[in-house]
């Protein structure tokens, strides 16, 4: 690296040199480097990107409108048709194309997973940073809240809240996020407590750096790997909970989701015979969730070097 | 009693290269003798000790050489033979950090009792009684045998670890930086006690440390290690007062002596080699003010000068010149200029 590169790197608009954005970018870069040689992690990343692409292109890829009720040649509803050239994954009890439904279902799971996780970890990371750094009463009260949140049975709580606020996709996202933040808050807090004891924080205090600077420029970049890890876990939980809510019949009635497809298949008794209706949404659910767990495995090695061997 | 011949121990890295942590070590330890193993971090002293009782981590391996202990080659024994015949009954260890070396969920006494009963056929009461006696001997309250490690202070934990090391009266004790983590007062108490007890049970010891003053006071023989080799080996007095290896000379310069009123501390430039697939040549040559072409091209072999004084250096025969020049600041400073600006002022010498 040449000298001018150094200067360019140091040259963001803020008077304080390297911006927070770049630090996050660098943390991200080191996270990317981490995946080299990690086959499980790479597989996870590949799967997750595939799912995101599928979600974005579902309307293009889906052969039919998922709501269309197809009819057989004799004009009757094409119910529970086995997979064929026209319907690669057959049809369901209302003659709708399973493949198209599965593709559209990707959108719900990916959307809920990503958004709920980002909101939850954003809240959790900030709560963790602030409580751990300032301690005292703020810490006491917020951590008691986290304890209480752990004392609530998660799924029943989500269902009651979704029922109360309405089974709208955004509500589902918000309710899941409102309950999931506790995980990342607790872990980030623990990590900040150890980072806080490290000498570089003292060094920042000694030069007169502000609390904000210490929290967001010094400590945050060092807890980002663990925040990324908890984004991965939060995605997994959010996807599972959304699917569970839908399976119990409390999902957004306007949308097609994998959980809802399985709910319909199950209540119709289709698991006895119509495998083509049951297996695809279930398998995809499993793969979507496992993709983030595989990524999480690799991130975990980063946060806990002892797991490398 | 212990005779190490041409020992090579390597660590395999993820990149497929080998770190030659111990690279052809020859050493001897006589009975009731204390050998000091001195060197800086990464010189292979701890690897050597672990290789002796085959405790290398999974990526470590003894690739060549032999460790002859009382006429048995330890590298040839099966794991089970080694465990039953050698470990703890013949060779025990005093760790650097006693607190971490004791299992936190069992009492200290129970761990000593376990070690005794694993190797000796004796009743529980007898083992506990012996443990209490050991505690007494090490200046610990015998009622604390039922305490957990974390209830001990650092010094007490170290004593407990020594009790554990001595419980089977082994023939050889490996002490890996046994007092580095302690304050000087406690260090002094413990070193004195270890020496006394060692005499009492008539065992030998290998004391690993980076502290020249500790080995000078405690050990009969000293081996100075550098880059996986023994650079110089002799009795303590010779190593301290009449060393021949430039590295030993440099270390003497860098070490402050409390008994002196004026002393110029001189550092050795550069930093230790990384030992990944080392090339031919003396490993100290890049930092040595006396290095010549031969030093950079040919690996020096150990050579015996006076009785028992073994040196690995091509120029060890010019002892007077070396000792004279090495005590001057300019020698080490001048040498830096030959190496170029980067290495000159720093100790780092990263490969730029």
């Amino acid at each position: 690296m040449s000298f001018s590169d150094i200067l360019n790197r140091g040259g963001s608009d803020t008077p304080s040199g390297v911006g927070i954005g770049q630090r996050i970018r660098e943390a991200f870069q080191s996270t990317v480097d981490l995946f080299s040689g990690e086959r499980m992690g790479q597989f996870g990343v590949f799967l997750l990107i595939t799912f995101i692409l599928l979600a974005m292109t579902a309307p293009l890829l889906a052969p039919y409108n998922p709501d269309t009720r197809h009819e057989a040649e004799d004009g009757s509803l094409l119910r529970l048709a086995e997979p064929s050239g026209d319907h690669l994954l057959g049809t369901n009890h209302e003659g709708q194309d399973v493949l198209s439904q599965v593709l559209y279902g990707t959108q719900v799971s990916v959307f809920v997973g990503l958004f709920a996780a980002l909101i939850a970890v954003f809240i959790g990371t900030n709560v963790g940073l602030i409580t751990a750094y300032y301690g005292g009463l703020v810490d006491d009260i917020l951590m008691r809240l986290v304890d209480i949140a752990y004392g609530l049975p998660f799924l029943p709580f989500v269902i009651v809240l979704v029922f109360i606020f309405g089974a709208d996709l955004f509500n589902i996202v918000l309710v899941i996020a409102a309950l999931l933040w506790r995980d990342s808050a607790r872990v980030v807090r623990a990590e900040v407590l150890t980072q806080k004891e490290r000498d570089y924080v003292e060094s920042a205090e000694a030069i007169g750096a502000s609390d904000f600077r210490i929290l967001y420029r010094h400590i945050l970049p060092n807890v980002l790997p663990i925040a990324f890890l908890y984004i991965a876990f939060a995605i997994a939980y959010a996807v599972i909970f959304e699917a569970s809510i839908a399976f119990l019949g409390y999902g957004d009635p306007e949308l097609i989701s994998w959980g809802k497809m399985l709910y319909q298949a199950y209540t119709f008794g289709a698991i006895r015979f119509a495998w083509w209706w049951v297996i695809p949404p279930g398998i995809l659910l499993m793969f979507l969730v496992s993709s983030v767990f595989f990524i999480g495995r690799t991130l975990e090695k980063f946060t806990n070097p002892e797991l490398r061997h | 009693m212990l005779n190490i011949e041409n020992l090579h121990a390597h660590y395999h890295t993820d990149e497929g290269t080998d770190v030659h942590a111990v690279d052809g070590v020859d050493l001897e330890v006589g009975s009731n003798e204390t050998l000091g193993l001195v060197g800086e971090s990464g010189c292979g002293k701890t690897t050597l000790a672990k290789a002796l009782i085959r405790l290398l981590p999974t990526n470590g391996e003894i690739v060549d050489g032999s460790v002859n202990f009382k006429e048995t080659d330890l590298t040839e024994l099966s794991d089970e033979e080694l465990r039953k015949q050698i470990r703890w009954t013949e060779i025990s260890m005093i760790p650097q950090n006693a607190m971490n070396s004791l299992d936190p969920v069992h009492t200290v006494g129970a761990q000593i009792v376990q070690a005794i009963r694993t190797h000796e056929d004796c009743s529980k009461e007898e083992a506990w009684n012996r443990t209490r006696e050991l505690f007494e001997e090490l200046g610990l309250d015998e009622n604390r045998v039922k305490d957990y490690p974390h209830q001990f202070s650092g010094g007490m934990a170290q004593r407990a670890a020594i009790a554990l090391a001595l419980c089977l009266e082994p023939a050889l004790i490996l002490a890996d930086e046994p007092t580095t983590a302690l304050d000087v007062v406690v260090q002094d108490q413990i070193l004195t006690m270890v020496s006394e007890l060692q005499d009492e049970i008539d065992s030998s010891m290998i004391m690993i440390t980076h502290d020249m003053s500790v080995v000078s006071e405690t050990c009969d023989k000293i081996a100075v290690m550098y880059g996986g080799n023994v650079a110089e080996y002799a009795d303590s007095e010779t190593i301290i007062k009449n060393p021949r290896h430039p590295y030993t000379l440099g270390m003497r310069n860098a070490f402050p002596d409390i008994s002196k009123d004026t002393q110029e501390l001189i550092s050795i430039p550069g930093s230790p080699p990384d030992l990944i697939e080392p090339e031919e040549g003396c490993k100290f040559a890049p930092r040595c003010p006396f290095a010549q072409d031969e030093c950079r091209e040919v690996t020096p072999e150990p050579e015996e000068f006076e009785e028992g004084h073994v040196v690995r250096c091509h120029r060890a025969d010019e002892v007077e010149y070396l000792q004279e020049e090495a005590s001057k600041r300019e020698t080490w400073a001048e040498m830096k200029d030959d190496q170029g600006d980067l290495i000159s002022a720093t100790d780092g010498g990263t490969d730029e």
Partner: protein
Amino acid sequence: MSSHQSKMRVENLKKHFTANQGLLDRLLSRGDREVVKAVDGVNFDIREGESFGLAGESGCGKSTLGKTLLNLHDSTDGSIYFDDADITTQTGREDIAFRTEAQLIQQDPFNSINPRYKVFDWVKEPLDVHSLGTRDERTDLVMETLNEVGLRPAEAYASEYPTELSGGERQRVGIARALVLNPSFLVADEPVSMLDVSVRASVLELLNRLKEERGLTTLFISHDLSLLKHMCDRIAIMYLGQIVEVGPARQLINDPQHPYTEALVSSTPIIDPDVERERIRLEGEVPDPINLPSGCRFAPRCPKVMDECWDEEPRMYDVAEEQEARCILHDEAHADKDVSVGGAQATSD
């Protein structure tokens, strides 16, 4: 004493910690909080341009004292005069001015640099925080400082992450960061104890050179008396939150006047096989600075303890030129006893 210009004067400084308890404990407890008296009534002054050594065993409060002097801890009681201004009462901008004057060099080179910062950013940060100079000026200053601490070529080091550097190099980066604000006072807390022996000397050499060239005043904290003897003009010995002896470095080591100093010196191993040391064995270890005994704090371990030692805390006595010790052996009432505790250390020079 008056002939010396004082850089930092400390009067009756105290730093007590109360065990951190949670909300619930506070509600439930009946006021039985444990107080750790890490620094408990310390007086000394550091003269302009000198190297002042602070020694003691772990847990004696020397690091806490160092950090309190830098205003990194709020003091519980007492005053710290820095260039004749009391910094314990300063806040806001004055504090910021003090921050540029007094800097810290830390012990652990592997922990003291934020692993996410490059050397350049790390050394430049103090300038950013205090908004000093234009961007170009900052860059020049950083490069100059890197050169000064021996990280040459500075350009090559500037773009490195700390993980790519050796311990000695990192310690130099830490020194550069402390120097970039051009301070007049440094607290060096065990600056070489984590480094290899062969490297230590070069870092010490650098600190000595900076002291000469920049006229820095340094507080040198270490547990290693041999090192302090070679680095410092004067040394203070701490025990359980108090200074028990202070005096010129060589004089204090060669002829200690407090039984604790004597024991510390006599426990230090000597490399020269010709010098025999007289060992004074102390019983036990440094206790926690909670529930301190009345009277002399060292009494429970002191080999020379007398009945009077338990009565009240001894004051500092003048024991030799510029040397003071906190021990009633030096009280006139004991003039008949053998007070010459020194001479334990044979000297070879």
